[in-house]
């Protein structure tokens, strides 16, 4: 198994303790801007580039989404798990990078590696 030092695709983000649930860090690495999010204790990373028109998506509002049952009763779900582009409000699932309404549009999603209390992103 490779160590952190051997993997040149891994980039240091921050101490895990400094990225609390609900927090994010946007870093530059390997020529990309990447947003790293702590969602309820789990870390996710997505590209800071909206597939719509190139807005800085990882800097946008983190919120939830509306859903409806078969009878049309509306509920608000997944609060804290949905990322919104600050340009046009396109919404993405932070975990997968998938757009909520467009099956072919997604943010680049990157692996996050935790080691010795440090957060790394694989880009």
């Amino acid at each position: 198994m490779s160590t952190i030092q051997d993997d040149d695709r891994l980039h240091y983000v921050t101490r895990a303790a400094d990225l609390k649930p609900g927090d994010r860090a946007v870093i530059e690495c390997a020529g990309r801007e990447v947003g790293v999010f702590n969602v309820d204790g789990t870390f996710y990373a997505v590209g800071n580039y909206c597939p719509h028109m190139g807005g800085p998506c990882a800097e946008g509002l983190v919120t939830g989404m509306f859903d409806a049952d078969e009878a049309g009763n509306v509920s608000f779900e997944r609060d804290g798990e949905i990322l919104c582009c600050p340009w046009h409000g396109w919404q993405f699932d932070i975990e997968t990078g998938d757009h909520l309404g467009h099956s072919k549009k997604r943010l680049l999603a990157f692996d996050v590696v935790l080691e010795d209390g440090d957060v790394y992103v694989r880009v």
Partner: protein
Amino acid sequence: MATETQRPQQVDDLDCPVVDADFHLTEQVSDLIPYVERPWRELFIGHNPFDEDANYYDPFPSSGVMEPHITTGRAEIFSPDAVRSADDVIEGMELLGIDYPLVTPGAVMLSLGLVHHDEVAAALAHACNTFVLDQIVDEARDVLATITVAGQKPRLAADEIDDRRHESGMVGVYLPTGGLNPPLGDERYDPIYEACERAGFPLLMHGVGSGTMKSFPVQYEGFSRGMENHVIAHPFQHIVNVVSMVTHGVPERFDVPFVFQEAGIGWVPYLMERMDNEYYSRRDDAPMLQAPPSTYMREHFYYTSQPLEGTQNSPEYVCAMARLMGAEDCLMWSSDYPHHDFDHTADIYRVFAREFDRPVLENVFGNTAYEVFFD
């Protein structure tokens, strides 16, 4: 024909200046108040949104439509403070790579046509122009703007155009049309057109989302000719109903083939793309949908072809629209016989046969309708 390598690869490669013909301010009432002139200013003192502590009157009516991506702050770029100075305009020009923005009001003044007090509407237009000339227009930095006028007072609007047309940096006239009634063909608006002609200025017309919702059916009644009505009567009614049905998940909740008749076809791909565009930004308003609106418009809705626009002048347009709407699945040929504008089978077939092969033609001219009605 230009090859790929000859064709400019990006906007920057073009030799022309890049002009943005709809670039907005986010002007707020507080920007306008210092410029509202007496006597109308007296109407507001102490009882108005110009006074932050007495905010119970707003001259700009709204139907209160909630835009989820805006009310939540999700689309952060559209904030009240986004574009309220020349520097803000420059920031937008740099973001978008624009050489010349035609700057027009894009916040409270969008609802100018809904202001019920006609003289106040004209006074607000006048104030807005003074504000724009004082704080926004900057010809040295290519920030150009337009003269805003209130349609409620066409003669005052004409005066406004005449008075401002020589101001440096003003290059057009901007008429907020949301809610204006009667529609713009009424002779009362002629002074505005005459003034634009005198100035040699184009007239920019801009609706407003919220206000239009309240005013449109009323505005429609202002038509005074049958043609005005008939050109849009069928497609507009369908657009209203399709938008409403899809947004509320009717095709998700009911297994019914819905057939929209007698509106031609061009509105269908237009509405499909327009609905999808909106949905990508605000699916919160349509949480019942499991797919983008166009999917429902293709798979659950059907459209009859007559009166098929474009057959006489532009058969390639007809084929393009048919292709874009997915005609093989959702278009049903129809004649409307014996109505005054019926289509003839042979004529319509000749147009479709330019592009489509037997399976598509058979669907359009019979199979699809047969399956929907008889199977």
